[in-house]
């Protein structure tokens, strides 16, 4: 059988990717909205429904950040509710290994797996962010360079607990004495996802993950990433087929490519509206810029010294350093091109990975990705709910099915089966 594409959706939680201002969107925070989307995804034969994690409400200069959607349920609790309201879709919770107790988290995930008849997944993330740690008894305790060591020990302890029986671990990073309380599910244990893109993250994925999320959704990057990961898999004696690669992406569909491009530009202008442009610069300047005109020149005041405020939680580590250099570059760019604050931010704020075009164009593109084994599928972040999901299910999925790269019915019942992973 030729390789097939696997799709998931990252349900909206926080951040500027979601266009809450759009008149078409309905309240995405109610249980009814979650159930409706999960059931639509089942109609579209998706593999999985994902919830992200952010354990501190994002801030701007010490106050809750007002411009993006925020406020979300506890992931495993919400997915347990969805387990009771769905029949096929995989239910994946992002949960970090720093601010959880291994025995407690392993048990909650096993419970979700059992309640759903073998549809649970765990997206393992690490964090050493002491700012987030301020919400926890055991906050800010883990050194940055040891975060994957802790994650590895944590995942190994969880897998031991899922295998049944009594488990003891007494290291300086994982200390527990427990016993399995949940019987194995039809898929054996929750499917393990891993999202970190650093060398430590890739190594953890190669050792322990069944699926990786990557940030590499462009063709060349995806090919290189897949090659790197398969090499690492071999190091741990695993077959190249024992790991699925699902990069994150957005989709903007149109009746014509031009219409889709126009729609995507319109979305970007909602995402980066004048208020967000000011807020974006405030993050770097570290000071109140609300008195500046978004359509006017860049602030003439000097930025507050020190590194970037981590409190937005959205920046990669690379973007947290060297802010003065970045501001100097932006000033030059704005001067050379005569850009206002708003225009500059539209130009420099990174774009989300997006597939933009007609359903037929995107289906062709994705078919190539999957036939070349550059990826095994995509994990989509909807910009509008419910319309992005409705459009993908109603318009893109049939095109993929026509090309023979997407299932036409669920053949199995577990997430592991949906992902076509080898049995444990």
């Amino acid at each position, binding site marked *: 059988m030729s390789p097939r594409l696997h799709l998931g959706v990252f349900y909206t939680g926080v951040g500027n990717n979601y266009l*809450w*201002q759009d008149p078409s969107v309905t309240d995405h*925070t*109610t*249980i009814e909205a979650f*159930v409706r989307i999960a059931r639509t995804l089942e109609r579209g034969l998706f593999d999985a429904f994902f919830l992200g994690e*952010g*354990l*501190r*409400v994002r801030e701007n200069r010490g*106050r*809750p*950040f*007002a*411009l*993006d*959607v*925020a*406020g*979300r*349920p*506890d992931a*495993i*609790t*919400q997915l*347990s*509710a969805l*387990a*009771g*309201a769905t029949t096929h879709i995989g239910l994946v919770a992002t949960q970090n290994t720093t*601010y*959880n*107790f291994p*025995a*407690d988290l392993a*048990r*909650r995930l096993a*419970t*979700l797996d*059992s*309640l759903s008849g073998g549809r649970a997944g765990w997206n393992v993330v690490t964090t050493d962010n002491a700012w987030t740690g*301020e*919400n*926890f*008894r*055991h*906050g800010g305790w883990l050194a940055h360079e040891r975060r994957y060591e802790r994650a590895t020990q944590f995942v190994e302890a969880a897998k031991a607990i899922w295998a049944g029986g009594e488990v003891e671990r007494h290291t300086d990073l*994982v*200390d*527990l*004495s*427990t*016993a*399995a*309380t*949940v*019987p194995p599910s039809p898929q054996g244990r929750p499917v393990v996802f891993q999202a970190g893109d650093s060398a430590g993250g890739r190594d953890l994925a190669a050792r322990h993950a069944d699926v990786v999320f990557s940030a590499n959704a462009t063709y060349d990057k995806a090919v290189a990433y897949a090659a790197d990961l398969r090499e690492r898999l071999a190091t741990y004696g695993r077959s190249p087929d024992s790991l699925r690669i699902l990069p994150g992406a957005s989709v903007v569909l149109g009746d014509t490519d031009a219409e889709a491009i126009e729609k995507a530009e319109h979305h970007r202008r909602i995402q980066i*509206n004048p*208020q*967000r442009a000011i807020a974006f610069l405030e993050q770097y300047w570290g000071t109140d810029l609300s008195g500046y005109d978004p359509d006017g020149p860049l602030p003439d005041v000097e930025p507050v010294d020190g590194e970037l405020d981590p409190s937005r939680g959205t920046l990669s580590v690379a973007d947290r350093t060297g802010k003065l250099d970045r501001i100097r570059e932006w000033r030059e760019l704005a001067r050379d091109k005569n850009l206002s604050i708003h225009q500059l931010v539209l130009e420099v704020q990174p774009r989300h990975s997006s597939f933009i075009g007609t359903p037929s164009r995107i289906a062709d593109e994705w078919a190539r990705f999957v036939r070349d084994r550059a990826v095994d599928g995509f994990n989509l972040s909807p910009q509008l709910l419910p319309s992005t999901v409705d459009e993908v299910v109603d318009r893109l999925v049939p095109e993929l099915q026509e090309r023979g790269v997407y299932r036409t019915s669920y053949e199995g019942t577990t997430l592991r089966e949906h992902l076509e992973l080898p049995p444990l």
Partner: protein
Amino acid sequence: MGLLVALETDRAGARFGEVVKAAEEVGVAFVTFADSPLPPAGGFRLEAVGRAAFLATRTSGVGLAPGVPTATTEPFHLAAQIASLDHATHGRAGWVVQRSTAAELATVGGGDGESPAEVVRVVRALWDSWEDDAVVKDVATGRYLDPDRVHHVDFVGTAFTVKGPLITPRPPQGQPVVIAPADLGVDADVVLVDEPVDRDGPLVFLELAVTPDLPAVLRDLDGRVDGVRLHPAEDDFGTLFADVLPALDLPPRGATLRATLGLTRPANRFATGGVR
């Protein structure tokens, strides 16, 4: 009869879903889900918040109150879990505050010791950390939420601190119902007792085993306590649902668990009021 009846479902084992549906049909006020991070002798047990949440969309009237220990769960996660259950049930969530044994504490490497009163305090503060009208979705100003209505809780306890706010907006009940053994000394809405007592403040629920004279016992208790929590053994559920509970004419439930218990929806401690 004005006696409220709650039901512990632990002994239903894997049949917990059926048992909760049956309890809902006969008019039980709320069900509880006892829990432990360790397995019961020779058996299995699913985690309690998961069990309760699984039934959120499968039930519509009965209160769902999982047992969650204060020492083996991070208070921040605990607050988000119960708040999420309250959202998913449109206001039918409760929390049975549990203490832990030494063996249970070992599952988290010993923990910080017990401080149930502090954990209840911080959980309650976190439930209030978003005001009810914090999400404003004001397209004109670009504001999804009003930052003046989302608050740090800045909790400082004897052994730990929590900054806040919670990641989850304020639950529909404002404060989900906190249920605790009376001797735990926490700020509870319902206290569980082993002997009828007269006390001011929280509602008093008497812990009761299911015995053949249960109907008479319940008649006798009416007016002496606010309610009872029944602890059926595995083979008691049949009789309870077929005979004992249908004969009781239990008080009607309200739209939320607080309403069922006659509790008002509390004001938010952080609300500043006034025009903003």
